[in-house]
């Protein structure tokens, strides 16, 4: 399968997000989920408004499979602006699949405060949801074999890779 270029996909996200950044209110907070989502959020931040606040989430403490998989001590800890109350948050991730990561990310966000709105922006929606979560903005949708794993690698350059999974540990 030929994969679209990451730049063109990020460009598509940026266009779809522009209206959120054009109102006269303070700009939304861009929050990327580690690690792929954080790279995308960083690029969107440069393109859309470098003055806007930027955060990242490491959701390992909130994963529902924590007792099976444990922590990733090498992943950067979460960092969100201190005040997110009544703000709009653009939550960014590379791939939307089961929906569990987004569930965990939203739980974590609400431990920081009460945002006015959360908008979910996703690079690749590959379907096969296990919980009722959907993205507001999607750059591309893809039908993938259930045994496949798609992931953003980077940060320099950003590249989408598809791997055939061994059925162990996922």
């Amino acid at each position, binding site marked *: 399968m030929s994969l679209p270029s990451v730049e063109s996909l990020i460009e598509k996200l940026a266009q779809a997000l522009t209206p959120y950044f054009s109102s006269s209110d303070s700009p939304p907070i861009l929050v990327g989920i580690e690690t792929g989502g954080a790279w995308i959020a960083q690029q969107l931040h440069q393109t859309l408004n470098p003055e806007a606040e930027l955060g990242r989430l490491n959701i390992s403490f909130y994963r529902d*499979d924590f007792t099976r998989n444990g922590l990733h001590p090498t992943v950067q800890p979460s960092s969100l602006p201190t005040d997110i109350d009544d703000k709009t948050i653009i939550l960014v991730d590379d791939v939307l699949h089961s929906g569990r990561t987004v569930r965990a990310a939203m739980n974590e966000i609400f431990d920081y405060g009460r945002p006015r709105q959360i908008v979910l922006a996703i690079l690749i929606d590959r379907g096969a949801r296990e919980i009722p979560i959907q993205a507001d903005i999607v750059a591309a949708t893809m039908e993938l074999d259930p045994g496949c794993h798609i992931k953003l690698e980077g940060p320099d350059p950003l590249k989408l890779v598809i791997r055939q999974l061994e059925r162990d540990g996922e």
Partner: protein
Amino acid sequence: MENNIQLDDQGRLRHFLSIEGLDKTILTEILDTAESFTSVTDRTIKKVPILRGKTVANLFFEASTRTRSTFELAAQRLSADILSLNVDTSATVKGESLLDTLQNLEAMQIDMFVIRHQDSGSAHFFAQHVRPGVSVLNAGDGQHEHPTQAMLDMYTIRHYKKEFTGLRVAIVGDILHSRVARSQIHALNLLNTAEIRVIAPRTLLPVDTEALGVSIYEDLETGLTDVDVVIMLRLQKERMRGALLPSEKEYFRSYGLTQERLQRAKPDAIVMHPGPVNRGVEIESSVMDGNQSVILQQVSFGISVRMAVMSMIVGQSGLAGGES
């Protein structure tokens, strides 16, 4: 080796009983994990759901304020339910044996025991007798080890000094009775500290001190020269049997850390103490409250380090999947 009881068959932490028997990789993983927990403390809701549904029992057969309360906070910030028992004031006074106490608590479906006991080896004893799936954390056993204290001390040192390889660390005082010193020395060695000095009168040194890989100084001023870290130990009056010391005043005169003596150390040296401090016995008040003292920071770091150890025991460490 008896210490293997701490690890599961894949080398991951199952109990946390002593620094001895662990390796550098695990110690570093604890420090790295603790670092990611420090951000939790800065948030509106200082809680993550890692231990949700688990029950932790704090079993303290010996008095403690700091260790017990930071273990409690750590468990609470990980969303565990926590039960704190001062055992010396309850069942054991009535003649119940250690194992009976343990079995009764196990019947309450406890997942993790945090144990402090006056007998060396008691945490190992508990670990050998708990059911599979139940973990034991040593919060100090006799004169043996106090591993979470040592790890929070390592965290503090790494926080201020970054690397261990170039460091000179002095541990001053009652080494003989100190489980903290024993754990610290093992940890500092595993983390490749350049030089570990112990400074104490002969009567307060264990007979096998040299074998621990440290250099020994009986004179405080010589020992402090050019060190990067000064760790003061508490004079453990309650553990003193026999005439090991002339008097507290005499002790302060020879081994008390004063501003003047601290000047022998490097100008950016940090001063640590595991607490509780006997002001005017092992350390002068002005040093304790001075700008080189990181004694209160140690207490704060203790929460993150204890969160790290508990979460590593519950979540099998290693690779998490990339499920999206």
